[in-house]
């Protein structure tokens, strides 16, 4: 019940920081929204359901965007829901356009803004060829970074530009209209040397940012790891590295590793069950289903779709490793 932080902050601020208030408010709002229906079914039951679904990550299904992006947990839940629902699309091997991915996102969140999808696609495609086809996994990991660390990336872009204009006045910068994203004209010959900013310097600034940033940022140690491998790098180079880094994916905890991306035995089982119900079934599917059925030894977890994928489960990604442990020990 009591964590050190809990004592460090006044109660109200602590609750707000932990987004408890967000959920409280939303719960009351939902209750208000459907009060006739819910009063029939029990208000206590409703609150139980509500907080259970928050824990399971199913509370974001078909919700408005403002709610989905309200907390890191919601974002992670949304990413996970997106992966779970459309994993099959990726499995099928279809390459889709940005717009089509956007449509899929809108199936889960009707007012999902196009801008975010566009930015994610830009990470994958690295340029303006926005009509190009992308693979599911490329898009998903890029989207994860863009969506989850959205505010952080905005700040990073600003820092990047500062560095670029300060240190390398020769580089041509083409700032995009309002997004705060920047692209460079690739210098054809010695792109690697002149493009981008110096990694160490960049890291210093980022570390600084992570310290005071109030939104979620990737673990500084991992950022350091990414930046220590190279001398210089561009903004998009950095984003691509972020999106491909499996440590960051693990730290975020919403999606499985890239290798396991198409792997969700519980859902595959469910899908087989659904396929049987398709009217006038042809037995061709059974052949393909066997492969995916075999490894599903793990017990189905229908009740709790939100299960720790990795060693640590983070309800709030803002807390780093040390507080997490105390959190768990004391509850």
């Amino acid at each position: 019940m009591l964590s050190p932080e809990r004592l460090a902050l006044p109660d109200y601020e602590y609750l707000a920081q932990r987004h408890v208030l967000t959920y409280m408010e939303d719960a009351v709002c939902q209750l208000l929204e459907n009060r006739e229906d819910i009063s029939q079914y029990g208000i206590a039951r409703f609150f139980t359901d509500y907080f259970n679904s928050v824990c399971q990550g199913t509370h974001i299904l078909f919700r408005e965007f403002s709610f989905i992006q309200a907390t890191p947990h919601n974002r992670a839940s949304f990413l996970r829901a997106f992966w779970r629902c459309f994993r099959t699309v990726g499995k099928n091997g279809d390459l889709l356009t940005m717009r089509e991915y956007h449509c899929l996102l809108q199936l889960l969140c009707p007012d999902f803004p196009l801008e975010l999808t566009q930015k994610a696609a830009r990470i994958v495609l690295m340029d303006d060829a926005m009509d190009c086809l992308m693979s599911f996994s490329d898009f998903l990991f890029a989207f994860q970074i863009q969506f989850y660390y959205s505010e952080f990336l905005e700040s990073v872009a600003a820092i990047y530009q500062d560095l670029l204009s300060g240190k390398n006045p020769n580089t041509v910068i083409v700032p995009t209209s309002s997004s705060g994203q920047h692209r460079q004209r690739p210098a054809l010959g010695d792109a690697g040397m002149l493009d981008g900013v110096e990694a160490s310097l960049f890291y210093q600034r980022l570390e600084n940012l992570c310290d005071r940033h109030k939104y979620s940022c990737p673990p500084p140690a991992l950022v350091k790891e990414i930046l220590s491998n190279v001398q210089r790098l561009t903004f998009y180079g950095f984003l691509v590295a972020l999106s491909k880094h499996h440590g960051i994916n693990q730290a975020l905890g919403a999606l499985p590793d890239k290798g396991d991306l198409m792997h969700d035995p519980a859902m595959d089982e469910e899908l087989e069950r659904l396929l049987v119900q398709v009217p006038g079934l042809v037995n061709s599917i059974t052949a393909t289903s066997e492969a995916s059925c075999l490894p599903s030894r793990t017990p189905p977890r229908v009740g709790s779709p939100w299960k720790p994928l990795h060693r640590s489960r983070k309800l709030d990604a803002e807390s780093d490793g040390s507080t997490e442990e105390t959190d768990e020990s004391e509850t």
Partner: protein
Amino acid sequence: MIPGKYRSVSGRAANNVNCGLHLVIQTSSLSDKNKVEFRLNRETPPFPGRLLQHDLERNYSSRQGDHISLVSSSMPAFPILQRSSEEKTLYSDRLTLERQKLTVCPIIDGEEHLRLLNFQHNFITRIQNISNLQRLIFLDLYDNQIEEISGLSTLKSLRVLLLGKNRIKKISNLENLKNLDVLDLHGNQITKIENVNHLCDLRVLNLARNLLSHVDNLNGLDSLTELNLRHNQITFVRDVDNLPCLQRLFLSFNNITSFESVSCLAESTSLSDITFDGNPIAQESWYKHTVLQNMMQLRQLDMKRITEEERRVASVVPKKEEEKKRESHKQSLLKEKKRLTINNVARKWDLQQRVANIASTQDRKDSESPPQESCQLDGGNISAFPEEAGSLDAGLSSALQGLSVTETHLVEIDGETLSLYGSGALECLDRNWSVQTAGMVTTVSFTFIEFDEIVQVLPKLKMKFPNSLHLKFRETNLVMLQQFNALAQLRRVDQLTIDPQGNPVVNFTLWKYYVLFRLSHFSMQKINGTEVTQNDMIMAERLFGILAHVASSELPQYRMISILGDARKKQFRYLLESKGKKPGIICEETSDSKRFLGENTNRATLNYTTREFYHEKLEEIKDKKKFCRLYVEDLVKEATAINMKNEALQKLWPQMFIELVRDAVIEIRSKDSYMKLCLQQITDQK
């Protein structure tokens, strides 16, 4: 045509006549076949070649003038005709100069009593030297080379004038021939009927084989009974109703294409015999009964007697024909109107799309501007229209112009297809369609309508056209997969056709599977014309089955209630919005939505709210959220305050307890004094 030399000769000849000086020259070269004493001596032709070239020459010798000799003058003058007295007495009133190879009219002397003169088959180019024959009644100049009607002004008693097969270009110089009975001008080059209005006694006029392009200017011909106009190029006939005695009219082999162009014939009461054969009109199916219907007085048509039966048939059929024609005219009018309206709608749609694009780009920077844009749209629309109308044919455009400017939408039922163009067309779903019409409609096609607007009328569509199985969308701004969710509320859909034009969603690779998945309860047969296969169904399930599963099994119950509740409410609202409040409909609707719940529970949560409604809903929620925030904030603040007090109390409590105990202990330390004190208190109470 006339060689100069020759003309001068005839000019001199005219002089001679006037002087009354007749030069008689007996030519030495007589014709071989002379059997009569007096022969008509021919002038030796100044241009022999000209004679030779005529075919007529062949016949000439055998039929040559019977008892007439022509005394030809020498080179320059006219031949002079003389007849024996025997001849004169025998045929005192007639003279036949057929096939005499005459190139000019001979001077006919001493024959003033002649009543009949025949110059058939000669080469006469000019009518002259007959002005003295004032008792002439019959003048036949058939088959000559006359170019102009002239030299007839003195022949006041002429009744029959035959000028067929000549080279006359113009009807003229007939002013004095008031008694003319028969005028034959066939086989000439006349282009126009003129200068005949004074011929009040004329009974027969033959203008066949001329170059007439039309017939008019016929008034005054009060006695005309027969008018022959065969083999011209006549396209229309007028004035025939001004001919009170006309009985026979021959219009065969002309260029008459419609009955309207000869409609004056219907006014004529005297006509009994008419021919139209060889005209385009005679090929038409309606020809015979139209003519018979309009000209009840006819007794012969195209040389065939008209039977009673024909007349009866004719009186029935044309009515139908007329109706048919009117119908087809109406059809073409409608067609044209449809085309125009569609154009108009398309233009409006185009503008709207452009404005929407501008608005959406501006929206990001500046949310205030769109209303202005929409005003401009109206103005641009109206002004853009007239230039379109200019390209139409006059009749239609005048009929249409009034209508089309206001037409911004079009509703059309063609057999089993209901086509809607423009968003205004959706209002037609409020109309009371007859059960039969509505039942027939199996295909509904939407063009130039925002899909979001269509969504709002879908419940109505379901009720009004229960048999619609095939939906077509073209230029409807379908951009998202989730929009297809809206179609799930319909009763049945067998076929779906989404035209790629104006529907970007069709460019997605997944759209078809999504449709199949979301609308799987319809077991659709065709999408965009291609048969849906089993594999398609499985693929659809494979791709989206998990989505449905997640949506149905993992959605917390309170969300399920609220989403399904919303869907129901939404349908009410769409209905109520335009319908007013009819309790019956609502009842029907509720039972419907119950069924719809049962049909596809695991998909029902995937529904589509139009952007407008969605934003409205978000607005609504905003207020509630605000309230919730304040409420929760108050509660939490109160709770934390209580908690703080509680904690402070908890902190103080041990100390307080100790203090209390200490006080008590101190109080009872000396037993006696404490006892006294207690007793004192008890007595005090009493």
